[in-house]
């Protein structure tokens, strides 16, 4: 009895490995499995309908030549046109996009450099006060822009940076997440590499620049993606700090168009599309970067 059941359970066990509950696509279609497959396909369709179709309808409506009726959002554009996009562009979308790109470029560069320096000290050095620094960084996670927004706005005002690029960039440079990610990654880099460089007379900055940073690219990429999304999503901060149309950001333009009721749904969604597309492109890039990072990490052991 035990003799017989062993290979069968082996087989079942093998089936289970593909998915948590052992629900998996069948190799051979029997009536029961066919039913299960049908249920799966229906569930997939529902999921796609809920999570993907709304995003698609945004594109369809934004690029439709025919204006949508009141309250309508299209599943398929009625003729293609960039008219909505051009209208939105003339209403400040271009300026907003430019400003948002400037803010994200400088903000991300500063955020990642500052985080990489801090992570090097935390990951590769043992020093008095390290646990205090870690506690301070943890504390900043509890102080997001929304919670400290008003005094932060007053601080930025005191530094005479209201309605300027530095006022929009500098507050988002310090962020705990990339420091954590990079510290975790840098801890895994073998000490031998660093010692070899040290024997060769390299100082800390040289080791940081020539040994640690080149090996940390996957983690830096991950931080870049998260940082991009974080900066790109900023809303309350620009809302408080920006006063003139010249400094407007993309999120402000999108909500500003909503307030101007004379513009149709197509124009408003066109602006939202411009806000959405860079994040999506970055995310699709992240996926590959993630896999590459994982792969190189496992090869280096």
């Amino acid at each position: 009895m035990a003799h017989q059941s062993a290979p069968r359970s082996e087989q079942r066990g093998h089936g289970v490995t593909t998915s948590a509950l052992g629900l998996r696509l069948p190799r051979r279609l029997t009536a029961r499995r066919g039913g299960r497959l049908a249920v799966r396909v229906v569930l997939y369709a529902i999921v796609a309908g809920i999570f993907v179709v709304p995003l698609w309808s945004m594109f369809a409506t934004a690029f439709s030549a025919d204006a949508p009726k009141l309250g309508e959002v299209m599943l398929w554009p009625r003729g293609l046109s960039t008219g909505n996009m051009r209208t939105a562009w003339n209403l400040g979308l271009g300026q907003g996009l430019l400003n948002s790109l400037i803010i994200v470029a400088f903000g991300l560069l500063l955020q990642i450099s500052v985080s990489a320096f801090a992570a090097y000290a935390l990951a590769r050095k043992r020093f008095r006060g390290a646990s205090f620094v870690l506690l301070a960084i943890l504390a900043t996670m509890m102080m997001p822009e929304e919670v400290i927004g008003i005094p932060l706005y007053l601080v930025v005002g005191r530094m005479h940076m209201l309605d300027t690029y530095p006022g929009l960039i500098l507050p988002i440079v310090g962020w705990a997440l990339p420091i954590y990610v990079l510290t975790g990654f840098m801890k895994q880099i073998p000490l031998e590499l660093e010692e070899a460089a040290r024997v060769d007379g390299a100082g800390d900055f040289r080791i940081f620049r020539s040994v640690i940073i080149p090996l940390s690219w996957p983690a830096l990429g991950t931080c870049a993606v998260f940082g991009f999304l974080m900066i790109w999503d900023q809303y309350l901060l620009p809302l408080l700090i920006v006063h003139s149309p010249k400094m407007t950001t993309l999120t402000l333009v999108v909500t500003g168009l909503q307030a101007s009721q004379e513009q149709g749904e197509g124009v408003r969604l066109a602006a939202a599309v411009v806000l959405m597309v860079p994040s999506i492109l970055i995310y699709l890039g992240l996926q590959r970067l993630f896999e590459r990072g994982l792969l190189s990490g496992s090869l280096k052991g």
Partner: protein
Amino acid sequence: MAALRTSSAPVTLPAKRDRSGPHPGTVRAHRYRWVIPWLFLAPALAFFAVFKFWPSIWGVYLSLFHVQPYLGDEWVGFANFSKAFSDPDLRAAVGHTVLDAAVAVAGSMFVGFLLALLLEAPARHVRILRTAVFLPAVTAMVAVAELWHALLFPGRYGAVNSLLGDFGVGPLPFLSSPNSSLATIMLVQIWKHAPYDMVIFIAGLVGIDRQLYESASIDGANAWQRLRAVTLPSLRPVTTIVLILGLIRGLRVFTEIYVLTNGGPGGSTESIVTTVYKTTVTNNDAGYASAISSLLLVATIILTSATLWWRHRRENA
């Protein structure tokens, strides 16, 4: 660029080898070694000090004043705090925020868990669907709010309403009625955050030892029993992380509410942070706004510390 590439090659820096020699400057180098980590930490700590800690502390300080631009601040002691504790509008806003945080977090986790179970399989078409389903999580909240504002048009011709109409439901008022506005916002939040939770759950599911399922199957456990006995307990540490992130995220809700309803209709969706914003911008009372912010900060710190402490104790028990 070329220099960068050569320097990233395996580490041999022969030029410097001779100069360091048998360490002539070692004593001095050792003496100042403790400075080096702080030099590397200095930029980050400076940014944190100026843009995180200073505002946090200054916010507490300001909450003791009646802040008046151009007229000078007037010391009022704890008046802003006693006002905060007796303000019925703020109490309503706290109620909305807590309810919203709890429901949206629980809902996102539930939907995210279902999505994870459904989309965990490594097959190619499932992976493509999974990628697509994750898109709401990376889309800026402003764009999400704008999209759903359009889709949830309250009349019969609104996109969602006309779909519901095909099933004989509605038309529903969604954001335009005080009875359904907060629930609608919760649904939008769940739509955006559930895919994020899904990814966390999938990472957790992948980490579960497959032999546990195998032995559960051998013992005759069905899918539901395997879920309860193996999957859910294994996911508990992950669940805690999702819960912390979600609750912190929930308490500071601002963007979606500001864009979708601006706190309306009739204050039915006013949250803590929208109240703070309006107190500052509309009522010009930065002192009172700072008091509310400080209370929110304290609540966030207590909540996070408690969760971390609880988790720490669990892990060590």
